[in-house]
């Protein structure tokens, strides 16, 4: 299930250049150090040549010692320069990766909630762990290698050209086949590595969800099923890995065989030039040796090409998440909210999930400020969907939902949430302290206000906490029960202080005893606000100002409880079935 998009080549290139541009100085320092290191590295064979010449000329031990000492110095310089070049590169890489993952989380936080739900947490988790890490190791390990290798190759080929331009030209004879096969490879590699990454993510998701649902696996004896499901994923990963291996099986041998070609041609052609007295023997030998030396950096470049591809593929997946946020955010201008009166109007709203059939078929509804409206109807009628439209989480396919004349989806999201809060039966306790779990609803709230909010929702468990607001919650620390977690959610609402509350069966997932306790807490929250309550228990509807009956995505009845009971429609029938 890969519901998240992947960035295209242009976006990837722009983002990569952006990362470099932000850290220009570090990149420049790294390049200079690597260049110096390459020169120091190339000095060793040149000095060995000097020793050969000196010994052949009958030089003494003193000259040999001097040159050997110079070699040692060059090696040390090479090592030291490499160390600082690598360190600069590593720090740059860490910074780039930190920027990347922080940007990734920031963009994830900006994702429309519907997109996240469809994509699955495993997919997002893989992108945030495996892909961000892969990009990181690419930036830290691969980029320096590419820089070093390119520097060395430039120096070596430059040296051959200096020996004789014609030798330099024939030295390039291996390049056409390398360039051709590299182009062939790179064209096919991207989709192949993307498929490999997607298959790997699915396998990780299979492992993660099996762990999350371990109790269900045990109870329903789904072990064999889960194993079979995972085996399928392993098979798919293998299929994609074989596809990329097939590409490398062409790419690697062609390039490697191409290494020998220029050496052979230089020797052969050098023989001809030698006959005509255009070059010396020493020059041909030097050119052949330089070419032999070029194999190593070329080979490293090639070896890391695969990793670079992987990194690029991961980079595209990491950036893909941002792309979606931009795409979703771009067409919507942010309109400043008008004065607070809080009149919610729904006009002709239709909605469907993905490309499915419509769930809502033209809803018209006006909610007045301070009104208590109950929405009832059978499961699957579209109540929760309507709640999400009212809260501005989903956008109607047709029609509009507006607050004081402004479409709710045009409001600045932060502003919208300050005015309209949606409370569902799903709650989440974040890893962190109790204070962390409250503060995000109202960043300016004092400890006093937080405690008052907890008291308001009768969260009496607060008294038992060892460290008060600083008590760690979640992830192996203290776990809150469902009711306590729901009270925590309500305390957040007290702090957030929105003028309109949408309650989507906020207490439905709780057992009745706890639900009653929570409902009492809720009473403290709803005072003085507009309330839209979605309820499957009719007692909630009984005392609302108005009741809307939603059936099959349409509002079929609308009026006060007594009006509807008198009308003798579906609501009246429901009410009777409730009372037995």
């Amino acid at each position: 299930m890969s519901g998240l998009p992947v960035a295209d080549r242009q976006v990837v290139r722009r983002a990569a250049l952006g990362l470099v541009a932000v850290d220009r100085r570090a990149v420049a320092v790294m390049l200079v150090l690597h260049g110096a290191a390459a020169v120091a590295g190339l000095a060793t064979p040149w000095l060995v040549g000097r020793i050969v010449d000196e010994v052949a000329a009958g030089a003494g031990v003193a000259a040999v010692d001097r040159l050997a000492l110079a070699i040692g110095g060059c090696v040390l310089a090479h090592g030291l320069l490499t160390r600082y070049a690598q360190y600069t590169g590593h720090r740059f890489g860490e910074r780039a990766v930190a920027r990347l993952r922080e940007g990734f989380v920031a963009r994830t936080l900006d994702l429309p909630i519907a997109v996240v739900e469809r994509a699955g947490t495993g997919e997002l988790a893989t992108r945030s762990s495996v892909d961000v890490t892969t990009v990181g190791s690419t930036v830290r390990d691969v980029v320096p290698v590419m820089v070093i290798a390119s520097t060395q190759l430039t120096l070596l080929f430059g040296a051959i050209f200096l020996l004789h331009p014609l030798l330099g030209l024939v030295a390039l004879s291996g390049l056409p086949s390398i360039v051709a096969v590299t182009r062939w490879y790179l064209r096919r590699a991207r989709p192949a590595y993307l498929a490999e990454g997607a298959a790997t993510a699915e396998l990780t998701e299979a492992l993660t969800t099996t762990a999350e649902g371990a109790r269900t696996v045990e109870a329903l004896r789904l072990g064999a099923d889960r194993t079979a499901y995972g085996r399928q994923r392993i098979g798919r990963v293998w299929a994609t890995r074989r596809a990329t291996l097939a590409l490398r099986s062409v790419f690697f041998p062609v390039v490697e065989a191409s290494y020998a070609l220029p050496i052979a041609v230089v020797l052969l052609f050098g023989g001809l030039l030698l006959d005509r007295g255009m070059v010396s023997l020493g020059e041909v030998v030097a050119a052949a040796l330089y070419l032999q030396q070029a194999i190593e950096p070329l080979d490293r470049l090639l070896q890391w090409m695969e990793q670079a591809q992987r990194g690029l593929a991961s980079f595209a997946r990491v950036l893909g998440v941002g792309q979606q946020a931009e795409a979703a955010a771009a067409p919507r201008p942010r309109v400043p909210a008008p004065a607070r009166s809080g009149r919610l109007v729904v006009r002709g709203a239709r909605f469907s999930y993905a490309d499915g059939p419509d769930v809502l078929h033209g809803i018209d509804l006006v909610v007045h400020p301070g009104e208590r409206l109950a929405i009832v109807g059978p499961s699957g009628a579209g109540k929760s969907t309507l709640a999400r439209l009212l809260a501005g989480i989903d956008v109607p396919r047709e029609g509009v939902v507006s607050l004081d004349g402004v479409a709710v989806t045009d409001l600045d999201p932060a502003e919208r949430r300050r005015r309209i809060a949606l409370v569902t039966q799903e709650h989440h306790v974040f890893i962190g302290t109790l204070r962390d779990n409250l503060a995000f609803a109202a960043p300016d709230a004092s400890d006093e206000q937080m405690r008052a909010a907890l008291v308001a929702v009768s969260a009496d468990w607060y008294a038992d906490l060892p460290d008060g607001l600083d008590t760690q919650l979640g992830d192996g620390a203290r776990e809150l029960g469902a009711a306590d977690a729901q009270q925590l959610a309500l305390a957040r609402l007290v702090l957030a202080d929105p003028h309109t509350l949408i309650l989507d069966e906020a207490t439905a997932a709780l057992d009745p005893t706890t639900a009653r306790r929570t409902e009492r807490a809720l009473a403290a929250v709803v005072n003085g606000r507009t309330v839209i309550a979605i309820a499957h228990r009719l007692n909630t509807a009984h005392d609302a100002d108005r009741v809307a009956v939603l059936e099959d995505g349409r509002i079929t009845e609308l009026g006060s409880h007594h009006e509807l009971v008198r009308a003798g429609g579906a609501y009246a029938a429901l009410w009777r079935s409730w009372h037995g």
Partner: protein
Amino acid sequence: MPPQLPHAEPGTPDTRGPLRYIWWLVRRQPWRVLRGGLIGTAWMLGLSARPYLVARAIDDGLRAADHRALLWWVAAIVVAGMALAYLGIMRHRTMTFVREDASARSAAVLLRHLSRIGAVLPRRLAAGEVATVGGADIIHTSAVLTMTGPGVGAVLAYVFVAFLLWSVSPLLAVFVLLGVPAVVLLVGPLLRRLERVESVYRHQQGLLTTRAADIVAGLRVLAGVGGRGLFARRYAARSQRLLAEGYRVGAVNSWIEALTIAIPGLFLAAVVWLAARMASAGDITIGQMVAVYGYVAVLIVPVWFLLEGGHQLIRGRVAARRIVALLNLRPDVAGPPSPVGGPPRPAPDGPADLHDPDTGLTVPAGRLLAVAADDPAESIALADRLGRFVASEVTWGGVPLTSIALDEVRARILVADHDSYLFAGTLREILHVRADLDDTDLRTALRTASAEDVVDAHPEGLAMPIGTRARTLSGGQRQRVRLARALLAEPDVLILVDPTSAVDAHTEARIAQRLHAARAERTTVVLTTSPLLLGQADLVAHLRHGRITAAGSHVELLEQEPSYRALVSRDNEVADADGSLR
């Protein structure tokens, strides 16, 4: 030879330690690893062919101005290049096969273990941890195996070069033979330091991943209440701490990189210096001196491989340790796979009463019993005891439940939690909990659970795809799909925990009727306080302060038990709920 993946049977891993685990991965494919070693060795030895051929082309061809000889040696260079390319790709393919075989095996044993370990797992492990193990750790562990081939080759190539050196000068050979172990000894402590730094870094990286997953899991809440900016900032702060740790790793790492260059480089310089002095003294020829330089330069490759191998081994060991830790997680002692003391006792053949001494509850065989508990925690604890998710005194047909084989208990007694997990798949796959089910069975169960609307609303019907945790379904729909799934398991004893808490009254009444008919003649326990479900039960028990205080029909209890009436009566609730809307 490519492996056949996934493996028919991944085998039993050696989980006594990370290195033993890696060794186990090797032992499962000894011939492939050996072949990789041989090809890797041939390739590495082949690397020394080119300098030799080039030297011959220069000496016999160019210097002697012999065009024929030049042509021959040049042709040999091209052919050798092709042969080397062939060996290279065969090495890479074999190593990829080795790596993928190991990765698939690790994934398979992890998967098998995760699906066996059961209920205890979520309590012991963060979800992010499994994602890290399943993602990066498997890969790092397998990477160790890819070093085996070149590793063997590196050692052989090393010996080969030492042998060649011996023919030139025993002194030089001894110097090389002693020098390289010294090189390794110098680098060893540094690599161990790297392991420490690296594991701290990886731990923090895992925590950061958990945070990101936590944010993803709570996105709905953030969408409802706000606070995204705060979470972004808090994550960024943690990310910055990891960055600082990354700097420390980088400081160590870069020194190792530098030493990887400097130590072999200095060693080579020393060899050259020694050889040059000997040549200058006339002990060896200039040709031999150049040859020594060439051979030792060739040695750099195996030395580099060995150092890199140590690097990967360390990383792989850290990763394998986490895999082994996960594989060593055991189910709780509370639910021992083999019964406490003595061989398993047979479960009752047919329907039999379940009895829970803790509360005094007896579940009559073949009936629908509803239990209304004052405290929801007590009803969950009761379900855990009856389903043997914890150790207890519960008996089944007089036999202690803990003395019956766990597998048999799981096969015949099902506890259906109200939040049981829904895996990704089509609706048909989700409901297909037994092998002999067909679509008619699935539709019947969906009808019993009053969940036809889930299928009807979707053009693909039973083939509709449902994501992990069925997030695209409404809370009520999810609950009814769970109920249908539990019914399809057709256990002898079905224990339903709050099966209709998220369902509207109309639908709930329908489910209550159909459930009774669908479970006719079979034992069913419903833990609920809903009057609609309680009204349909054959027998109702009231659980209060840890004991069953009353039992009878719903109507009887309503009349005779004020505390029961207070618990389930909707009239009371209306009064409270009024408050909620005022």
